[in-house]
């Protein structure tokens, strides 16, 4: 589709096709996006905190795509509406904000990992600026290739709006190991999507660390299409005071004998809001699939709110294993007494719980970050 066609779609589509559930209509406050749809493209880029900068990047997406280094085993080129593969050919545009992104994104890249190739480390920073920033990444992993990538989705202090979509098409027998860090200051709504399709016997490992901003909608959708493909997603999500996050982690099983594992830990502080939804769907074609989803949210702030909606839909008679688990808990008196009896104050206990949640997914350790970096925004 052309820019023009996406624009028409944008005008027609609603923000959300159907209400999330009968009781809570929207986990995402789309109004905050709606108010900013008319803004200009960002000119000046937001500064990135030094600890995030020091990760070091092969590609930086800002006003345009800056490819700093050649990475052995892959070709990296600037994306356009008719690059190969085409942006948005994998993922179908299904709501107003996705269509908005589709017709307005301003910088992007296409990464092709060679057949049998191997990438030790490809790190990409997607930044932001005052105004609208739209970034798009398409990744295609060749057959039997092995890749390790780092994606940082950063949204800084200036006013604006950001959309950041990543599409990954995984070739047969390929593997991708991804550390995904989403860090948003409370000044813009951000819509982030990681959409992955898995070919036969491919494996995907995603570790997510997210700290939302004004309104962060973050979706990780995995489509296990090829037989025997496997997905493992571990997420640590935090909503600080004054922020709202709607994190949706999905495993869709289409191929037979596919495996899915999603486990998420979240924490909501102050008056923060965290919806951390883990969903799995096993389609009729996904015979002998196994799928487990788990979402736990701890509420620490007195005015904080959390949702840990798990969903597991099974549409085949033959599953190997299917399980789901979810909880939203406040710090209970018995937990508090127990930890205090070890000599820790309430404040220290809260810190430990926060750190525990943040380190759960492994991103902090892998990228050598201090948990404090999430609080400096």
């Amino acid at each position, binding site marked *: 589709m052309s820019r023009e066609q996406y624009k028409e779609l944008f005008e027609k589509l609603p923000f959300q096709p159907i209400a999330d559930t009968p009781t809570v209509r929207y986990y995402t406050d789309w109004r905050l996006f709606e108010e900013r749809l008319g803004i200009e493209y960002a000119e000046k880029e937001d500064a990135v905190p030094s600890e995030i900068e020091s990760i070091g990047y092969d590609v930086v997406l800002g006003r345009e795509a800056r490819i700093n280094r050649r990475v052995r085993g892959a070709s990296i080129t600037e994306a356009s509406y008719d690059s190969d593969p085409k942006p948005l050919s994998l993922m179908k545009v299904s709501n107003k904000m996705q269509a908005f992104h589709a017709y307005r994104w301003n910088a992007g890249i296409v990464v092709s990992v060679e057949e049998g190739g191997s990438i030790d480390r490809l790190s990409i920073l997607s930044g932001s600026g005052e105004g609208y920033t739209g970034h798009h990444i398409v990744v295609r992993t060749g057959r039997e290739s092995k890749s390790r990538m780092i994606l940082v989705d950063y949204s800084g202090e200036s006013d604006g709006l950001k959309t950041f979509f990543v599409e990954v098409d995984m070739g047969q027998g390929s593997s991708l190991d991804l550390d995904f860090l989403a860090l948003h200051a409370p000044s813009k709504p951000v819509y982030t999507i990681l959409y992955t399709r898995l070919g036969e016997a491919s494996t995907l490992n995603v570790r997510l660390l997210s700290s939302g901003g004004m309104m962060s909608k973050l979706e990780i959708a995995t489509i296990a299409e090829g037989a025997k493909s496997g997905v493992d997603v571990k997420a640590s999500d935090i909503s600080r005071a004054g922020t709202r996050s709607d994190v949706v982690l999905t495993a869709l099983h289409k191929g037979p004998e596919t495996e899915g594992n999603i486990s998420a830990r979240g924490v909501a502080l102050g008056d923060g809001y965290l919806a951390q939804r883990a969903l799995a769907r096993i389609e009729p074609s996904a015979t002998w699939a196994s799928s487990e989803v788990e979402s736990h949210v701890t509420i620490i702030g007195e005015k904080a709110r959390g949702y840990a909606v798990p969903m597991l839909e099974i549409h085949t008679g033959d599953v190997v294993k299917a399980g789901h688990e979810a909880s939203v808990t406040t710090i209970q008196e018995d937990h508090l007494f127990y930890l205090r*009896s*070890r*000599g820790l104050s309430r404040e220290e206990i809260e810190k*430990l719980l926060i750190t*525990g949640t943040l380190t759960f997914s492994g991103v902090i350790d892998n990228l050598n970050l201090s948990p404090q970096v999430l609080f400096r925004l």
Partner: protein
Amino acid sequence: MSGLEVRNLHVRVAGKKVLRGVDLKVEYGEVHAIMGPNGSGKSSLAYTIMGRETFEVEDGDILLDGESLLGLSTEERAMKGLFMALQDPPQIPGVRLSTIMIAAINKRLGSTDLTRVRDPSIVKRMYKLAEELGLTRDILQRELNVGFSGGEKKRSELLQAFIVDPKIVILDEPDSGLDIDGVRKVSEMIRGLTDQGKGVLLITHYARMFKYLDPDRVSVLIDGKIALSGGPEVAKLVEDKGYAYIRSQYMARRG
């Protein structure tokens, strides 16, 4: 005096009177066993000593080395040298067993960063003690009490007691849910605590631990009062005659 002293303690929880004038002492290097039937107030006594806010002290005092603890919070009491191993510790997802031990040690070393390991020998010690207690190494990396078996919970509580090195250790039924070998092991380890000069308040239903561990004193708590107190012979009497007998003797004495 040195050690822990409880004087004429009256306690209420959720409107219900659970302790009605308890007196007891735990001196350093000794095991004072508290026995008593279900619901007699044993755990309430432990919680009150530890300063759990839901247990309201109506009268009496709790002293450590002659100083009252009543005005202190739970964590302050812990920092003064009290440790309580819970009868049934809660599951805490998001916090690892090793994390809580490192935090507890760091706090006692006066560090503001509770998560960083300052001295690697501490980790070695954790593993060594875990092994001695019959725990596998991987348990240290698991979330606190999440999916722990009954026996693993008891051992992990005792492990923490050793690691934080308190003056007084209150053990609330450290033997329940343990197999025979576990009871022996844990009993020997408790003796290890007093050998280090700590005072132990040992709460238990049964005398079975006393095969491996001679208590220095034994008190029987019934309906929130100490009905009988003495040496190991008291435990023998409980074993032989049961709590109903001790209660009736106590009632008779009081007229």
